[in-house]
């Protein structure tokens, strides 16, 4: 199962997992309520890399993630995923996605929630059932297959949502503040689990968060963004190695990176104040 995910197609080695080139996104162009959500975004994400996107609210993190997912189209510029257009990647279900809301379908059991993307891909029932069992093992909730979503805690629901996002073994996982609604303890546990799962499968992750320690703990690189207009202001390489544990959170290097990201964000705040813009 894990082999099929790590074996890469010939061109995957040469092209980045995600290539964002000269992307601009303007909402309501030409109207009084025009918003320059993203300006001149360039970013390459390497296969297997974990990227955290961080920045003050409204800086365009979710917009950038939705452009990669082809849920939005860029006003200009291009997004490619393993050399394919974002649109083709979406049609091929090349990525999995998870949001702050689990978005579980209340009328489906846990296993049938995980199976939905496979069902839409035309998998037969036996194969779907086998995969959903595997995914439940992966997120350590095998005994909840027949439960209904509302019988699960918020953290468990989120794990099911992740299991569903990974059900078709995508090489790319896109996450928009998936742990934002969880308490701190559950959250740290989920972060460790996510790293374990993605490392085992070699999954590339783009992860939106507004928590600095979360961004640093998870990522190979933290992409810092600033608002009005949304831009990438700094990219912090974390370089803490891939084997991260609870000890990582107490390491000196970890704090150094947290400070670095915090200062990058503070720089944005200062610049905003200098421009006389209120942050609310």
């Amino acid at each position: 199962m894990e082999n099929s995910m790590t074996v890469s197609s010939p061109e995957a080695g040469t092209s980045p997992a995600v290539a964002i080139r000269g992307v601009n996104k303007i909402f309501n162009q030409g109207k009084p309520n025009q918003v320059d959500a993203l300006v001149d975004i360039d970013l390459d994400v390497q296969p297997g890399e974990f990227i955290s996107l961080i920045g003050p609210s409204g800086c365009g993190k979710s917009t950038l993630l939705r452009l990669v997912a082809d849920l939005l189209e860029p006003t200009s510029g291009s997004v490619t995923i393993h050399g394919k257009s974002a649109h083709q990647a979406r049609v091929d279900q090349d990525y999995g996605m998870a949001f702050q809301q689990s978005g579980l379908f209340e009328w489906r059991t846990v296993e049938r929630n995980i199976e939905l993307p496979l069902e839409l891909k035309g998998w037969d029932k036996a194969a779907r059932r086998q995969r959903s069992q595997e995914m439940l093992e992966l997120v350590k909730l095998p005994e909840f297959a027949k439960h209904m979503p509302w019988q699960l805690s918020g953290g468990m629901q989120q794990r099911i949502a992740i299991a569903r996002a990974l059900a078709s073994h995508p090489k790319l996982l896109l996450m928009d503040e998936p742990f934002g609604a969880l308490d701190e303890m559950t959250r740290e546990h989920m972060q460790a689990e996510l790293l374990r799962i993605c490392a085992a499968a070699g999954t590339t992750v783009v992860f939106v968060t507004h928590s600095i320690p979360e961004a640093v703990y998870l990522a190979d690189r933290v992409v810092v963004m600033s608002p009005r207009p949304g831009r990438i202001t700094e990219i912090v390489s974390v370089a803490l190695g891939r084997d991260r544990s609870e000890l990582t959170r107490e390491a000196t290097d970890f704090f150094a990176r947290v400070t670095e990201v915090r200062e990058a964000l503070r720089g944005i705040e200062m610049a905003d104040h200098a421009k006389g813009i209120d942050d609310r």
Partner: protein
Amino acid sequence: MNATVRLRNALAVVLPPLVLGVLFLAAWQAWVVVSDVQPFVIPRPTDIWRSFIDDFDLVWKASVVTGMNALVGLVLGSLIGFVVAVLTNRFAFVSDLVNPLAITVAAIPAVVIVGVLNNMYSLDSQIPRRIMVTISVFFVVFVQVTKGLRQNDATQMELMRSYAASPFDTLKKVRLPNTMPFFFTGVRTAAPLALIIALVSEYFGGTQDGLGSKISGTLNGSNKALGFAYVLGGALVGLLFFAGSNLLEYLVVPWRRRGRSK
């Protein structure tokens, strides 16, 4: 322990209205007996009950006639309301058109349509009444389903897009299930309405074999107890409709039984 808790909860729901009902009947009986009201003015509850037992076949026959009219109209109106709402959902103007119409139909005594329909069918036909019930139910269910189809969970819709799901799959697997609670709200609201319309539409001519005709016929006569026995029959049919529509909802949208996690 779980069972006793559940029993206690059920009692807490059922007991208060039951006690209130019994108290009300006792007060009625006491008042009629003490102030010596003539039975052809207001009968005693005990007399009504006796009449209900003695003339049960009369009450039963009339209840079946009116109950069937209401049921046929409820089922047809619900199905048509659901299907039309789904089919016209792509065209916002349809519901913009139908919604004010629905309010108008609810506001004016539209049962007069029955008078018109009666002229189109034979004298002993129940069809005009059933059509009337169907129309009334249709609007209630249509409005609810239309509302439901427009209230989709944003995250669920984005997920379906990320799966590149076809519009049909999105409708079948997400929007329709999402709409079911709204549909049943419509059916539950329409169930008592169906019965009332079925009863009232009997006042506009046609055969005199339903509860509505019997109630108005006997309540004007001297056998008031029998009149109230028919009313009791109507109340029981109403209770059946209430229980039936709630049971159906309980069975079809189990995820609504408990608070949702959203």
